[in-house]
């Protein structure tokens, strides 16, 4: 069935977004992309180590993928905006994942700075996907600021603890008229499926795939899980039935004379 995900006017064919950090080798990336089917791939921008020759990860991302640079390293809106502009000027396309983290213990995002950056970048024509803590009022403000989607965390980056923020993410899915993409903390394919069953538009997975013993196989597993969860969501999950009782204590009076 045709079930396109539309972001920034572009049809995205796969609801698993892939992060490229922590891989033992960049050579694994195209293999994981192929095995998982991921179309949106994130990268980061860093200073070159002048004493040591290194590779550009972007050369390992297949050409038909959507490259989404993140603003990791930014501690405030100003820095995030600078990174986004640099990435775009370098020919990276106009998608950007706004990630502003000033907390180095848990790597939790700064919702306020992220919102500021989102507003500035959206006005400059970027397709902005803000990474955030699932706060409904902030998410509503992200909508007003021009975000193309919202990306609430499932649990802290790298923790592999799954959907700890499930109830809050559920509220975002119900209330926010943009794609809700669960990003961070998804540790298993079953958790990715769970997010998709709830109605998430997509999930972004990095650590769980990159640090698996066999990243390519894990990428394949996540691809299948995301598809399964999405199909389940679309086909309507069965409801939990309560047994009916013979008597009608609340409304019985309506059927008798009173």
């Amino acid at each position, binding site marked *: 069935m045709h079930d396109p995900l539309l972001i920034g006017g572009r049809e995205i064919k796969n609801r698993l977004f892939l*992060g*490229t*950090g*922590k*891989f033992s080798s*960049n050579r694994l*990336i195209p293999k994981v992309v192929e095995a998982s089917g991921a179309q949106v791939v*994130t*990268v*980061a*921008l*860093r*200073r*070159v180590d*002048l004493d040591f*020759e*290194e*590779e*550009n*990860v*972007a*050369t390992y991302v297949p050409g038909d993928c959507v490259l989404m*640079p*993140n603003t*990791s390293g930014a501690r405030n809106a100003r820095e995030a905006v*600078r990174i986004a*502009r*640099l*990435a775009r*000027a*370098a020919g*990276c396309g106009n998608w950007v994942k706004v990630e502003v983290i000033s907390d180095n213990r848990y790597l939790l995002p700064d919702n306020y700075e992220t919102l500021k950056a989102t507003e500035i970048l959206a006005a400059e024509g970027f397709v902005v996907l803000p990474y955030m803590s699932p706060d409904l009022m902030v998410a509503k403000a992200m909508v007003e600021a021009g975000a193309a989607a919202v990306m609430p965390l499932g649990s802290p*980056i790298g923790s592999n603890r799954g959907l700890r923020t499930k109830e809050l993410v559920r509220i975002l899915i119900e209330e926010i008229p943009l794609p809700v993409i669960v*990003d*961070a903390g998804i540790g298993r394919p079953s958790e990715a499926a769970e997010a998709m069953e709830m109605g998430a538009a997509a999930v*972004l997975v*990095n*650590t769980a795939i*990159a640090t698996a013993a066999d990243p390519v196989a894990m990428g394949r597993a996540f691809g299948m899980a995301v598809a399964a969860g999405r199909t389940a969501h679309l086909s309507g999950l069965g409801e939990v039935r309560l047994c009916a009782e013979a008597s009608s204590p609340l409304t019985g009076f309506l059927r008798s004379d009173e």
Partner: protein
Amino acid sequence: MLVLLNGRESDLPEGMTVADLIAQKNLRPGTLLVELNGELVKQDAWPDIVLKEEDRLEILRFVGGG
């Protein structure tokens, strides 16, 4: 002359261009981004940009990230 290169003070010869610097550091041009005083400098402009005292230069590249 003193130039701030990737956040560190570096003493570079007068008249050095961006292209010269990249070559001197043995860096592969195609994989880099260069930002001079807050502005991106495209690769074809590197031979023409002469570095000056107190310039702030950032040499960046794309890396894996989530």
